[in-house]
């Protein structure tokens, strides 16, 4: 007992002692960024651009040569680059603080089909991991529950907030499903080989999903005297107010998943993962399925595959005309600050830089359904953007001087920059 109390006191003091940066107040004065290279996030780039925003919205995006009065504070942008805030789909940021400390983990509820479980209310707006996204330009995330067959419902948040209500951009945007795997890992502790074997339960698992979807579709909220929370939560999928994000990687899994979802009246389906999506591109196009591809900085799954297959997957799908964005759902949360470099990695495979940028901005916003306000630099949209000294998709250029969320000038300091300054101060005798 004594030990337990110590633990509580200890952990408590750590989190209290190092709170997050204070969220910025609303934009009160107009801001003009003059002379930077503007990367719009829709494939366009404007050299020597002028960007102006007021009341949190972009009021001008165009050439700096345009004869127009600069409003409010003017930031000299010469030699610098402006980007829309990067968007991180399919992450459990704010749901887990320290991976190995169970007490800090809120990403995986028990249960197989639990669409009614909602991530938003557990989202920790003061997470130090979330805070560390911002200096790299990652300003928006889809906070996603993990585990089970249907993991729960996600919401989309911005990364500078007092609490989860402040943070929310789109509440309960989608439901997330893990499609059964065609091959499963050998249970080596039971004497099976360590590799992958055909999953003999696959058909049964698929039937379970169909059964659930059919019953959810047949469920009548109004006429039912007893609420079924799982079925109730699914209703948004059938009226188009929510999207279904299905994690599947193998070609057979992908085809089964999309077909099953469509056959059961689900209107908006997004493929997540999609490692072998490049093998079924015609199918995806025909069904108009966007893909949140697994991130590029991973190893090929199979020995015989091209060493650079994960690097080039987004290019293969982009070239085929499929709407693609990058997510890193299977990586640790802290890695999400490397989102710009996941996109940069594809450029070495021959994708144009501006198209690579779309993989973490404009395309992501479209797929998540927040493109009315976020993802690109366009007049009327939210002023969620940042200024970098150099090419933000390249490590050596990604150095932010300013970042804005809805026009609010947010802090780029973090727990980490504070420690940096503190100890450099120690050594430099400051």
């Amino acid at each position: 007992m004594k030990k337990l109390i110590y633990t509580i006191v200890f952990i408590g003091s750590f989190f209290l002692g190092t709170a997050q940066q204070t969220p910025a107040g609303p934009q009160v004065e107009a801001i003009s960024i003059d002379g930077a290279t503007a990367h719009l996030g829709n494939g366009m780039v404007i050299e020597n651009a002028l960007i102006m925003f007021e009341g949190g919205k972009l009021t001008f995006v165009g050439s700096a040569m345009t004869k127009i009065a600069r409003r409010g504070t003017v930031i000299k942008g010469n030699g610098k680059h402006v980007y829309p805030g990067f968007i991180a789909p399919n992450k459990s940021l704010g749901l887990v603080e320290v991976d190995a400390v169970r007490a800090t983990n809120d990403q995986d509820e028990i249960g197989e089909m639990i669409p009614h479980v909602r991530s938003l209310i557990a989202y920790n707006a003061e997470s130090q991991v979330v805070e560390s996204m911002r200096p790299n330009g990652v300003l928006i995330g889809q906070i996603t529950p993990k585990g089970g067959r249907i993991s729960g419902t996600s919401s989309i948040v911005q990364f500078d907030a007092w609490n989860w209500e402040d943070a929310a951009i789109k509440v309960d945007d989608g439901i997330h499903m893990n499609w059964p795997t065609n091959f499963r890992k050998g249970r080596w502790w039971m004497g099976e080989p360590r590799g992958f074997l055909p999953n003999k339960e696959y058909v049964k698992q698929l039937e379970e999903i169909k059964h659930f979807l059919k019953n959810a579709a047949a469920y009548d909220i109004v006429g039912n005297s007893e609420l079924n929370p799982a079925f109730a939560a699914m209703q948004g999928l059938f009226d188009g107010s929510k999207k279904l994000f299905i994690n599947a990687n193998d070609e057979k899994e992908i085809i089964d998943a999309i077909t099953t979802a469509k056959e059961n009246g689900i209107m908006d389906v997004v493929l997540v993962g999609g490692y072998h999506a490049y093998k079924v591109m015609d199918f995806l196009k025909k069904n108009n399925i966007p893909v949140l591809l697994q991130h590029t900085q991973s190893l090929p799954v199979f020995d015989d595959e091209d060493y650079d297959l994960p690097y080039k997957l987004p290019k293969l799908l982009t070239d085929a005309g499929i709407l693609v964005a990058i997510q890193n759902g299977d990586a640790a949360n802290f890695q999400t600050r490397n989102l710009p470099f996941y996109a940069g990695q594809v450029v070495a495979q021959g994708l144009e830089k501006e198209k690579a940028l779309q993989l973490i901005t404009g395309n992501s916003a479209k797929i998540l359904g927040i493109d009315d306000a976020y993802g690109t630099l366009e007049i009327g949209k939210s002023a969620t953007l940042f200024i970098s000294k150099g090419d933000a998709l390249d490590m050596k250029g990604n150095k932010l001087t300013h970042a804005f969320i809805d026009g609010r000038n947010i802090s780029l300091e973090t727990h980490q920059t504070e420690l940096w300054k503190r100890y450099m101060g120690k050594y430099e005798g400051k």
Partner: protein
Amino acid sequence: MKMKLLALTLLWCGATLFAQDYFPDNEGVKSKNNNYTAFTNAKIYITPTQVVDHGTLLIQNGKVVQVGKSVAIPKNTVTIDLSGKSVYPSFIDVFSDFGVSKPKRAEGSGRSPQYKPSREGFYWNDHIMPENNAISTFKFDDKKAKELRDAGFGVVNSHIQDGIARGTGVLLTLNAEGGDSQRIIDDRSAQYFSFSKSVASKQSYPTSLMGAMALLRQMYTDADWYAKGNVDTKDRSLEALNANMGLPQIFAAGNNGNVLRADGIGDANGLQYSILGGGDEYEIIDAIKNTQAKLIIPLDFPEAYDVSDPNQASYVALKDMRYWNQAPANPKILAENGVTFSFTLNGLKSPTQMMEKLQKAITYGLSKTKALEALTTVPAQIVGKTDKVGSLQPGRYANFLITSGDIFDKGTTLYENWVQGSKNVVNTMDLIDIRGDYTMKIGDKTFTISITGKPGKPKAKVTQDSSTYTSKIVYKDQWMNLSFSKDDELYRLTGLVKDKSNPLTGKLVLPNGNESSFVATLSKPFDQNKKENTTSKKPEMVPITYPNIGYGYQSIPQSESTLFKNATVWTSEEAGILEQTDVLVKDGKIAKIGKNLNAGRAKVIDASGKHLTAGIIDEHSHLAALAINEAGQNSSAEVKMEDVIDPKDIDIYRNLAGGVTSLQLLHGSANPIGGRSALLKLKWGETAQNMIYDNSPKFIKFALGENVKQSNWQSFSRFPQTRMGVEQVYMNYFQRAKEYEAKKKSGKPYRHDEEMETLVEILNGERFISCHSYVQSEINMLMKVADKFNFKINTFTHILEGYKLADKMVEHGVGASTFSDWWAYKYEVKDAIPYNAAIMHSQGITVAINSDDAEMSRRLNQEAAKTMKYGGVSELEAWKMVTINPAKLLHIDNRVGSIKEGKDADLVLWSDNPLSIYAKAEKTLIEGATYFDLEKDRQQRKAITQERNKLIRMMLKEKEGGNKTQAPKNNKKEKFHCDSL
């Protein structure tokens, strides 16, 4: 009745042949049968290479008396005429578990691992059981013995297949009669070893292959120490081990890498094991040959994968498809390379499978002589019993086979397997072969009967004009029963077969129930070779590559003279970055750096617009390994990563594609004192041994924090559980090492201790520590421990809080190898910051960026670039963090890590600034040989697609041909990190 009679006869024979002289007999009067038996007119394989036609084999009292062309037959001889038949020595399997039962699996021991032994009076480790003797649990198994005899075996060497040191085996004949007193040739025939732990004990150590190897080494030195009388207490294991030293020593290795490992342990202890292989020896045949070990080779060639579903087929790796295709060539390749080997049934589901597998090996080119040697003379040599078994020379046991012809041919029948002069019938010998085409008249109908199949198990096809009758034939004990019918028209035939030229006669029952006699006339004799011609086509074998997996090369890359023209050269030296510069590579070294160099005969590569750097060096890697942690003890200084290198790891190739040329393969972080490192060059295609640096500097892994405290998994019993305890482990070990060395130097006898030897090396500055570390308190602690014992910590690896005590690190003189930006994965990395490298660098520490991860290491150039983002390190200094700085930390900076004349030509040609996310490695050279090349890579991809297609086609054919297949699977290797157990 007849069978019973036969059995009685045999029993009687056996009893009289073998009753011991001094045993009383109360069932009659003593009578001894000293008659001879002669087998005449046979083709006799006295040995596989000594064959006589029309020879005579003369046996008496279970042994061979005489054999040859002209053998004088004594008067008291029973003669058996074997005209047209062949006689072979019966087979021997030296790796069997016949008659011994496997011990019971130990029950679980709760939530914490068991560190202590379960036994008293034996070696400290339960998995060392040389005191086990197979004879002590041996029970002759009649059913198994018959199965084995039916497959041609006369002798097996059986042992308890459990544990690392397994004790002795028992060599026995499979004589059905006479009892164990006759059968047992040697009850301590050989001593057995393996790398696998006993199932009978839960004792944790060793948890890894390298731990098993270290344990074996320590076991031998302890046995020596014990033998010299230095131990007061009783150790029955070591006593047994010592007592068994003179026996043949057999090691169950089980795959080609382990064959080399086992042989290495033998060499270090002056022993030559005979080694159980895995069937994959052909992949590294030169190294296998160099062991000079006699091998015991399984015949469990894999079945083809069922690839009829293209989606499922895509999961099967090329290497596994290849293994299906190539494995049957293993015996042939071993034989061609002069490796002495025997066959074993080990791995086969049933002895009946053996002949078919052997025939397959023969179609792949194995000579029949070698096949026979592997079943007779070689196993006899392995157990040192050539004077008793394995041939039919006079004095040997009368263990022999009688066959209808060449024993390895498909149509051949094995008639009898005689063991110690006692006859066992497998197939009736005097059976008349009734196969052939016959015609038979019944009334006005003429039937054609075509009999095919095996002589003892024929098949019949009955036709009349153009209509075929359904038919069934049974041929047993010389009686033939045939029935055939069409609709209601049923004919039944039965007859005793006694006339070779007119075999089918007898009684006929007509459709109406009336009986009459019949005679079927032989119209065409059976053609033995008809079917074989179509099946004995030599199979196509796909080429072996180095390594033998996808992306392996047809031959190992060789050093070439190369001139890189007009490159941007990142020297990682004072010279910095040189524009428009040439670099000449000769004899594997960097020969010259300058402008407008003369190519001479060197191959010229136009590098304009490209960047040439030294190869990347990863200070902290776990790729190319078969195991990472020996977690069975809190100190594992005795284990060596060099023991467990996996040269077939595809991540080697992928890392070359990311410009990595060298790495330190580190032990994991499970223990305060980990294992010894391997410093590797990523020479894709070379053997494990050839990847290790020559005169490699010596390193060892230490670890601090949560992993060694076992904080993040269920373990509560091992010391230390706190950082306080960690210090005490070090203090204790180094103190003991000091005392050990003092004793050693004093000249007094001392017990050689692998662990202590390693720690003494550290104390003397001969071995360097790379210590896994996170939190500043413990880092400080370890430096203080080192100060106390007067040595220096070489490197703190990970060192995520290094920035908090950079001043103290500078004072101690330790280097740092860190992650660029990892944090938040456990509690002790909550203060890990990406500015760490920059801060430490600013204070004058030699800083490297490391990976601990096979994915990150192939982008280590990008990770270095992050130090520019986080903390503003200059381009030049950032690049040094993955080249010359890790080289310095690893004490190999005199050879690699920079572009400097005289250094190894470990070079990478990049498409762009190597610190840019947009850069791609186009060529990667090690010692002047190109191990990765974008263009070659493109060709490899094509080749892999084609080869996969070809093998899939072949496997589909295999399935169509009615052969057995196995379900597709993907034998994926686990990716290792520090905490992989």
